[in-house]
């Protein structure tokens, strides 16, 4: 099955190949941008598959550096976080989004553009342009808005959590991260969502990842499959644990902002988010 492309309503381009679904929007020389996106996307999956085994291997000191351009982005985004269990796959969606976005903004003059790879979004805007994005929960209810301006230097939005397509080690409903690149946001969202947790708590059901998806890069790590209702105190404790992780990532310059959602509670820090629910904590 070769890559597929289709125009969606609202002048959006849909590219699909294997597990990747990209939705692309562009303002300016749209036709040229879409043609460029389609051309670049043609080989994306093949490039990744060539080094798939390495990309699914835990990053340790001495692990070989991959060769492909996208694989290198993944490696680079994950490398600073090697102290926790991580494979370059943690940044695959964001890295693909960044790669395709970079390609189209070089190929065509654009005012604004985005590449949304299954929720991990690479965004581009000219000076004095902005972007507004809605955050919805898995029920489709709007949780808040993200408002970006060109001077924020944010190029990536990523969301991770229990209700996404990949498995999570934590219990966060979702964590949305703003960073300079989609690859950085992607890996950080994964790390923060994993950190929102109550280790050993009886309300949380976990299953080895490879029992659910035999080829999961998470191997035998126990991913969360169910969370029974939590008390407000427990919810607060789990979110607090995620915030510690998020603050560390921001202090070291890897992310700009994050919003953490769990059981109708939300914690937000950094600029860019407005939430429909009163943010209990701003740091």
């Amino acid at each position, binding site marked *: 099955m070769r890559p597929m492309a289709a125009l969606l309503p609202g002048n959006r381009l849909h590219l699909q190949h294997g597990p990747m679904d990209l939705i692309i929007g562009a303002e300016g020389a749209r036709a040229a941008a879409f*043609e460029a996106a389609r051309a670049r996307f043609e080989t994306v999956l093949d490039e990744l*598959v060539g080094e798939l085994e390495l990309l699914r291997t835990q990053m340790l000191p001495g692990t070989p550096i991959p060769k492909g351009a996208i694989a290198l982005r993944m490696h680079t985004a994950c490398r600073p976080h090697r102290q926790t269990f991580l494979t370059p796959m943690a940044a695959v969606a964001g890295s693909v989004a960044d790669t395709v976005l970079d390609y189209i903004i070089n190929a065509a003059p654009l005012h604004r553009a985005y590449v949304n790879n299954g929720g991990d979004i690479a965004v581009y805007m000219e000076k004095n342009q902005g972007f507004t994005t809605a955050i919805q929960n898995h029920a489709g209810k709007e949780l808040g808005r993200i408002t970006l301006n060109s001077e924020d230097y944010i190029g990536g939005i990523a969301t991770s959590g229990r209700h996404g397509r990949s498995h999570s080690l934590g219990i966060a409903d979702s964590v949305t991260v703003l960073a300079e690149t989609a690859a950085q946001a992607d890996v950080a969202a994964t790390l923060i969502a994993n950190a929102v947790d109550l280790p050993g708590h009886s309300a949380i059901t976990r299953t080895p990842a490879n029992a659910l998806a035999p080829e999961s890069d998470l191997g035998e790590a126990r991913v969360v499959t169910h969370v029974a209702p939590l008390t407000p105190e427990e919810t607060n404790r789990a979110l607090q644990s995620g915030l510690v992780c998020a603050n560390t990532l921001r202090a070291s310059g890897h992310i700009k902002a994050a919003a953490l959602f769990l059981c109708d509670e939300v914690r937000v820090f950094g600029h860019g988010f407005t939430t429909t629910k009163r943010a209990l904590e701003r740091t």
Partner: protein
Amino acid sequence: MADGDTKPEKIRCDACPVMCYIADGKSGACDRYANHGGDLVRLDALTIVETTDQALVPFLKTGEDWDGDIVQGSRPFVTAVGAGTTYPDYKPAPFIVAQEVDGVDMVTVVTEGIFSYCGVKVKIDTDRHIGHERDVVCVEGEPIGHVMTSEYGSKMLSLGGVEHLTGGSKKEGRVTCDALLQLCNCEAVEMVIGDGEHQTTVVVQAGKAPIINGVEEKLMRVGCGSAAIGMFAKQWLGQVDDVVVVDDHITGVLSEHEAGKQLDIPPTGLKIKGRRSTPGRYFQVADPGTGWGGTDIEDPLTILKPFDPKVARVGLNLLMVSTTGEQFAFFELDENLEPQPAPIPPKLKASADLIAENCEPSVCSVLFMGGAGGSLRAGVTENPVRLTRSVKDSLAYVSCGGAQAYVWPGGGITVMADVLDMPAGSFGYVPTPALVAPIEFTMRVEDYGALGGYVNEVKRLEDLQLSTARKVTLSGQPSPMSSANYRWPKR
């Protein structure tokens, strides 16, 4: 569906370069392809029902314009087969499709529901004994359902349901789900009914004759033994002295029966076992079984008692026939007034053939029955109970894979549909275990908005990418979008 016993090999998916190894019952990284019992299946092959009066025009490719695929001049109905499911997430159903039909903007919310509360009702056209009411039906030694109240000329089974799917052992759930899936996809399932010495093996396949203890059933009975006497009495008049129609339910005796009396057929002194209901009608002449007329008898004479010597005479003749006409025998009384086999006269043979000719072919019918519960309805609307009300008020039409579905009265949306009316391979499963079945709700756009539908998610039919979709024609089914289905004023 293997868990523990014999796990089939993983298969390698070659649909894309990732080349996932996929274990049985799992899907690949894309969630589009899965291993089903060793076969690679595409999970999202959307199936479209074309109404027979309008053919689908081939999809047009418009070169470099990325115009996608266009459906023109036809009225295809997008079914939920292959639509993918939203369970257990409450996001909008995967496809909410709008198209204009006869000037009314119609919306079809297409989803594949995961039915934990589901099962099948099986109607087996036979009078043969397959088990007593309430007998347990087993597959691979696991209980999957039971025998329920018999219907006219048919035995009924109720299989599946939440008690077997998730209420019992893990193996029970797996075997039940597997059996339901096969039955719903019109495959044959062998089941054992009853226990101990009363076991009957039945092979059930939708649209096919049942196979009972290794013998394929051919015909439904023409009626009970008493009814058969009433239907054929005139043809026997003058041809034979007496007729016994052997039936598990009511065995009929011509000379005693009201029909025989009307024709002035004299008494013959024939005496029969069993319990007399009214003249010429006998219950329980033998035990139920797979022999004559659904009884356990192979030799019909075993149900006769000695003839009354005051009435019977030497040379008196007798036809014994089953309610399907498949078995028949002709006897004459010897000097001891004992019936002896004799060659059957052609006219009587013809009457047995006529009984057989009037019997309908025996088939198994499989009706899927399931309840559209909370999360499925939430995929259609933010206010699930309004969907239920819309269905009850005939503002929304429910179909399963484009096939007409009967909606039960009362609360909830509990539907039944004949699996033979649905596109082949409509059903799937998840390891929960539960069946995945297609279900569509069709209504006017304004009604959809009024019930709190995800109006912003509605896609025009022409905007759906349907080039990889499967197209089928269902004959004899009303179009789900026909205005005749709805309560609102017709145009």
